[in-house]
């Protein structure tokens, strides 16, 4: 016999303070790391694009906190540092990739937000938006072929990415195959500089769910508790055979598109709406208000996060850069098919 879960004050049904704390932990870690990455970028230490998840940490972390590491699949996108960490990505993987260490998971071949470890259930994104969703579908199908029926595959996309044909084809395919897919749409009101009124014309992106026969949810993406609740439900529904789930998080990108962009086109009027609230501050305040943590406990967490980031960055900076002479320059796994005798260049 199980007793009905009792909702804590300030928390939706079934979400414990421990879960909330876990989510907050990864939000904090991600924010701390990304602040550092941004600083490194601005001091010229990072090559290539830097895309931050500022303002989206609650939505991203909440999803990954609801997944089972080592069992589920999580395909993050460019603003999912928090989700990555909550899904178990090593902070050193991040630091190494950004800092061009040859020891990173991509060995310098691919960079920054493209990193992944597909063998740990975290595919490495390509840039083309929407392209990862069908890949997750295939991974889920593979699990089913192997007799594993309770893997959930989650993937993230933005408001802009929903306009891609790839998004549509994959959602539809997932629904036809009734796959345990969770698609998290972070509607941060902008795609690069493009506001949503030039991106789509439906009232709410969640209105797309019905057109696929998927289950849909719309949530305040600045509210960690609400995000936890909605993803808990969506992941459970997916896991128990109810097919694809679409969760739209409404929030605001609290930074430019990339570290190179000051985001000056984001109007003040939207920043001052509830969408513009900082999810991290909200979550922190909530923990204080509900006494799930004391000020000093939170400060200790912050100090620990800073220390972890500092160590990872320092380690990555000590690492060697890739050496072109040591690079194989061969794209194939089938070594016997490589043409090594004839210069093709």
């Amino acid at each position, binding site marked *: 016999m199980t007793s009905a879960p009792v909702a804590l004050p300030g928390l939706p049904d079934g979400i414990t303070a421990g879960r909330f704390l876990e989510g907050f932990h990864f939000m904090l870690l991600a924010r701390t790391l990304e602040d550092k990455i941004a600083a490194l970028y601005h001091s010229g230490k990072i090559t290539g694009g830097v895309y931050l998840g500022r303002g989206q940490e609650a939505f991203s972390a909440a999803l990954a906190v609801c997944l089972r590491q080592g069992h589920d699949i999580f395909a993050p996108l460019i603003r999912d540092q928090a989700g990555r960490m909550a899904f178990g990505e090593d902070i050193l993987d991040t630091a190494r990739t950004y800092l061009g260490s040859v020891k990173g998971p991509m060995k310098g071949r691919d960079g920054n937000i493209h990193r992944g470890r*597909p063998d740990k259930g975290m595919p490495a994104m390509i840039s083309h938006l929407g*392209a990862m969703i069908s890949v997750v579908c295939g991974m889920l199908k593979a699990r089913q072929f192997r007799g594993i029926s309770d893997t959930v595959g989650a993937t993230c996309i933005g408001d802009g990415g929903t306009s891609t044909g790839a998004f549509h*084809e994959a959602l539809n*395919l997932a629904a036809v195959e009734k796959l345990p897919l969770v698609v998290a749409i972070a509607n941060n009101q902008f795609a690069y500089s493009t506001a949503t009124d030039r991106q789509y014309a439906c009232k709410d992106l969640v209105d797309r769910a019905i057109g696929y026969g998927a289950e849909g949810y719309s949530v305040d993406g600045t509210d960690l508790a609400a995000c936890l609740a909605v993803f808990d439900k969506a992941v459970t529904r997916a896991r128990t055979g109810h097919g694809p789930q679409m969760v739209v998080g409404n929030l605001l990108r609290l930074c430019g598109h990339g570290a190179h962009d000051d985001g000056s086109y984001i109007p003040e009027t939207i920043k001052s709406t509830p969408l513009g609230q900082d999810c991290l501050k909200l979550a922190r305040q909530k923990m204080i208000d509900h006494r799930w943590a004391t000020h000093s406990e939170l400060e200790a967490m912050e100090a620990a996060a800073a220390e972890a980031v500092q160590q990872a960055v320092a380690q990555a900076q000590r690492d060697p850069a890739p050496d072109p002479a040591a690079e194989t320059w061969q794209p194939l796994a089938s070594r016997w098919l490589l043409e090594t005798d004839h210069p093709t260049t």
Partner: protein
Amino acid sequence: MSITYLEAIREAQTRALQENPDVFIYGQDIAGFGGAFKATKHLARDFPGRVLDSPISEDAMMGFAIGAAIEGMRPIVEMQFADFSSIAFNQIINQAATHYWRTGIPCPLVVRLPSGGTAGSGPFHSQSMESLYAHYPGLIVLTPATVGDAYWMLLEAIEINDPVIFCEHKFLYYHLKAGALPTVEERLPIGKARITRHGKHASVVTYSAMVHEALRAADELARLGYEIEVVDLRSIKPLDTDTVLASVARTGRLLVVGEAFPYGGVTAEVIARVTAEGFHLLDAPPKRLNARDTPIPYHPNLWAAHRPTAATITEALRELLGF
């Protein structure tokens, strides 16, 4: 007993499904219907749950196969026509082709492309896309010209730990027959070209359906006393430069024939390689013959004049021999 090129493809898939539990097939109308060309006839019945109809979503079909491959499955994707792979292009060149290089995790899959022209098929059901796919790093591109190769190369392709673009020629599907399949000892591995006909006056290097046009041209010229060597590349990428060079060393004259469009592509690649490494072997300027540089025409009259044929190959060889 005799077996067609198409049947060989079906047999290879049957055997792969039988022998390897990781193999599955995905594509439009391939389950109950057995595919637009019947290359998967009865396979859904014989291998329940492993031959799946897809929606009309080439991009997602390809992404789906990639995801499954990353997880260790061996998907075969049937495009209904090669031409529709243009919709899956991004997933093929940017996702499948880069995956191993970027992550160290292989992406073993086969994309079957019913390729090439047949009378009346027109601009969107006739394309030969091997040159496009060969241009991008990370793909294996195969173009079997014989029944035996269709069988063995497909089986081998399924075993390869990389994405393979398998260009089947529709013109050969029903017409090309063999008495029996070669044995495993007789098969030539992927990556090796075949000297289909030996000769000493000129080499025609070609692949897929054009091998048969070249053979007819060689027959024609044999009547005039010329011995034409015909090299079937079999695999476009990797390309067996050694065999090509050896042939040119024997004949001193090179004609490269392909059914794809003329600019760049396989025929230019072969010439660039031969002239770089075997310049001194050439007794005459190398020639190439491709389809014309227009879309592939619908009307049979026009189509016959668009692609190379035994007649135009013969003519090109005459010029080459007369140089």
